[in-house]
């Protein structure tokens, strides 16, 4: 696939390297240091840093503002944008705002329902859905046009991504759904956290059977478990998450003080196994409020140093 944007992520993937991405959740306050500190922990070990957009529907510093802080410190951000909170005017406006700061990556999402967050009494918007947001940003970039049809002066240059959850139901449409996102213009995919590697492999095989792995770059999502309690919470309380019983057993069978280390071991073993899965082009390491562990994971998984491409 030829390179269409100045995105470092796109260049690394296009050159055939395994990409490493991570993420940074903006703070519940206005102190930029909270963003800068997190980014400093991971910046030398990852290619780009996703900045979440009011994740789990909890009000936080805006994703774009946090992306700008990263950009100003020389870290390449991935602007996450959910369709829950903005209509098509605001979404397009935000895309232009990001482009004005030369932000080159964007991840299009629908977002968790607001009932999970701190404003359950609020409205949701969903003027567009995540697929239609992909279409919108691709139109703005490739055709240089707004949804309304007018020309954009200096169109955005965004490498466009989407999420995929191989573990949500119904399983039979999980690959067709990926195909739809690709048809809408998703150039890279970051998956839901993978704990059930067997099921992920089953999904990837179907993806490859359809040749979809050659039409988009699939980054496998991993999240190190901090404790057996977290594993159980993820299994039982997080929608669309698949944590097999043997993972929970392994965590629960480890003394409490060693559980964080065991969680990281599982994460690294998962990455090692996924490296040989056809179609996996990189890893998205989501160490939630545990960013300091990312460098060690990247190093131990043999993904360091990161390639430099001009």
């Amino acid at each position, binding site marked *: 696939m030829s390179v269409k944007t100045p995105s470092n992520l796109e260049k690394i993937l296009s050159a055939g390297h395994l990409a490493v991405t991570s993420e940074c959740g903006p703070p519940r306050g206005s102190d930029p240091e909270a963003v800068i500190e997190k980014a400093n922990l991971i910046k030398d070990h990852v290619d780009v840093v996703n900045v979440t957009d009011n994740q789990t529907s909890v009000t936080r510093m805006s994703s774009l503002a946090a992306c700008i802080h990263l950009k100003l410190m020389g870290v390449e951000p991935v602007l996450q944008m959910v369709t829950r909170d903005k209509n098509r005017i605001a979404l397009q406006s935000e895309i232009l705002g990001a482009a004005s700061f030369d932000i080159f990556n964007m991840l299009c999402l629908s977002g968790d329902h607001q009932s999970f967050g701190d404003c359950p009494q609020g409205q949701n918007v969903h003027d567009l859905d995540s697929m239609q947001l992909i279409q919108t940003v691709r139109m703005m970039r490739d055709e240089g046009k707004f949804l309304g049809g007018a020309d954009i002066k200096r169109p955005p240059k965004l490498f466009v991504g989407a999420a995929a959850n191989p573990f*949500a*139901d119904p399983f039979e449409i999980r690959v067709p759904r990926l195909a739809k996102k690709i048809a809408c213009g998703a150039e890279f995919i970051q998956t839901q956290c993978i704990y059930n590697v067997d099921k992920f492999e089953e999904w990837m095989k179907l993806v490859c059977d359809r040749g979809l792995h050659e039409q988009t770059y699939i980054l496998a999502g991993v999240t190190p478990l901090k404790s057996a309690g977290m594993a159980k919470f993820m299994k039982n309380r997080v929608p669309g998450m698949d944590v097999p019983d043997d993972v929970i057993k392994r965590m629960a069978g480890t003394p409490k003080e060693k559980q964080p280390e065991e969680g990281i071991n599982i994460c690294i073993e998962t990455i090692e196994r996924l490296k040989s899965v056809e179609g996996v082009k990189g890893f998205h390491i989501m160490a939630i409020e545990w960013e300091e562990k990312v460098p060690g994971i990247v190093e131990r998984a043999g993904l360091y140093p990161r390639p430099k491409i001009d």
Partner: protein
Amino acid sequence: MIVADKKPVEEIIEFIKEDKKILILGCNECVTVCEAGGKKEVGILASTLRMYFLNQGKDVKIDEITLERQCDHEYLEEIRDVADTYNAIVSLACGVGVQFMAEKYNSTPIYPGVNTCFLGATEHRGLWTERCQACGNCMLAITGGICPVSRCAKRILNGPCGGSSKGKCEINSELDCAWQLIIDRLKALDRLEDYEKICPIKDWSTDRAGGPRKVVREDVQI
């Protein structure tokens, strides 16, 4: 039909506690079917209020009338002669009926006695569920007859989202995932390949987003 639910009686009392002559006005249509504002509910509310005022030692006259409909001029005309004689009218019709009453009887305070909830159907007695949000641009032909606008918590037109689990929605494990229903239905119709058709960006100008709506049919106007 329009589905409504009873307002707490305490809230209704707050509206009318100073009034001396009150009319409880029911409607024979949707709110009768969903047992929120028909003749039976008018009787129950009137009795409750009479007891309340009796306990308060107040002499308040409470009358009961149930009209065929509160969303048609001709039926509202039936109370033309008496409307002005009341200090307050509590309408147990949907929000449409309450407003139509208020427009017609300009000088009489009209209070809502129900909360208007949604356009829905009777699953069984005592359970009504939403089926339509009146977006003004029906897309049921391409979604197997299941509406993602009214039945998906995120109104996702290309679903399901990543929160669909065992056929249920991420916001409530008792709520069906609309997209699971759509996929099941497409399968039953042997049209699962339609799932991969991308639903284009929707024109919401026919929805409430476009402002208060009207339907004009010159062909049927007299």
